[in-house]
């Protein structure tokens, strides 16, 4: 059963260390050598977007800014380029979170796609404005894959919240 507003599933509260762990893992995935392959999504953007929608009180622009700076340094790209894109994405995601969560998962992915696409386009604009070369259209496939991954990501990232802490025979759920 999917945990949306339409379902009656009640989730456990999220653990802060799990959020930190997933964000660090996403950063690690981003730093893998596979990042050059076309269509490999920006994992940090995906996970940040997920937590900004789900837990906007715990993860929002501060995290985005710090992770963006980390990505900038790891990439050796223009300082502040990822930070700008992530912060704006995080802000929009958290302000739209009430609406996005209302939809079934596939439609959520559809709503998230423009956000992830914006991350890519903002970076493209920032770099083209400072005189970098166009990286090719393969650069813009990543957000599409990331939006498709929204569905599995929801299940994986909410996994620790599914199980009740203590099993009780008399409990209805």
């Amino acid at each position, binding site marked *: 059963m999917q*945990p949306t*507003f339409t379902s009656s*599933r*009640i*989730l*456990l*509260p*999220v653990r802060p260390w799990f959020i930190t762990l997933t964000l*660090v893992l996403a*950063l*690690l*995935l*981003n*730093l*893998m*050598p596979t*990042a*050059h392959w076309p269509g490999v999504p920006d994992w940090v953007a995906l996970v940040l977007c997920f937590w900004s929608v*789900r*837990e906007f*009180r715990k993860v*929002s*622009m*501060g995290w*985005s*800014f710090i992770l*963006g*700076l*980390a990505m*900038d*340094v*790891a*990439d*050796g*790209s*223009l*300082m*502040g*380029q990822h*930070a*700008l894109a992530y*912060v*704006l994405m995080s*802000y929009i995601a*958290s*302000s739209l979170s009430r609406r996005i*969560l209302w939809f079934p998962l596939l439609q959520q992915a559809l709503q998230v796609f423009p956000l992830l696409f914006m991350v890519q386009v903002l970076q493209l604009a*920032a*770099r083209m404005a*400072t*005189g*970098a*070369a*166009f*990286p*090719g259209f393969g*650069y813009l496939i990543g957000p599409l894959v990331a939006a498709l991954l929204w569905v599995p990501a929801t299940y994986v990232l909410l996994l620790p*919240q599914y199980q009740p802490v203590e099993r009780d025979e008399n409990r209805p759920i």
Partner: protein
Amino acid sequence: MAGIDHSPPPFFKRGPAPLALLSLYLGLSISLMVLDHKFHYLEWVRQGVAVFTTPLQMLAHAPSKGFSQVDEYFASLISLQKENDQLKHTQLEAATILQRHQHLEAENRHLRELLGVKERLPTGGQLAQILYAARDPFSRRVIVDKGMQDNVLAGQPVVDHLGVIGQVTRVYPLLSEITLITDKDQAVPVQVVRSGLRSVVFGLGNGQLELRYMPANADVQNGDVLVTSGLDGIFPAGFPVAKVVHMERDTTYSFARIICVPVAGVEHFGEVMILNPREALPPRPAEASATPAEGDKPASSKVRRIKRSVGN
């Protein structure tokens, strides 16, 4: 019903409004971009953040490194033997050339002494292994395994066994970043071997190079080899850089469009040599510094930046 929040929502302590936070962070990141791009002030911030990201990067690259080591271990005996034979062959070839080279170098030194010309410095350097290409898809850079610990400085030229690869642009404690000559607007002062014509070759960002600001009737032909001219005080003279592959002489433009491909294995991975920095050139005469004399050298910000970092 995203979850039962056990802590009640903070009604009274809410922190700054989201819009205020957004404008703060946006302002910060935009000013970071301007400071980095226009003024290059942020190298110390990079060094600081790199202390945290470099271990993560190494961790992320550990699996692929492990796989390649396993792969090497299981490389078949036959291929190794074949490679060994080939290496012996090339070494023998190189040895004869080297013997003659030593003789020629001695003779050259002697002749130079006779002429009273200032001696050319022998170029030395250190070997470095290319670890991976930088993740940034907008630029062409690679990361090598030598850094501040090995006294690498920004601005040092990097070559492989065929020719010039690029230049060290950023140095981290354990790694350094090399901007390839094919990076967009990366400039290398060159000389055409056949005619001795001096110019500057620029990267195009698509794996090719362009010889810009050459008059339409310039003495350049397809197949001409370009070597470093050594005028910049950074690259030692005489290293092969590129080969002319395509020329367009359009009379409507005052400049010829000359496309070259790099000679060295710029986009390949392997071992490279980071050459020692050259001794600083004597300062220019006052007259020349007042008006930038070279008509064929445009004021490229990259050239200036690198020169400045070498000058320090």
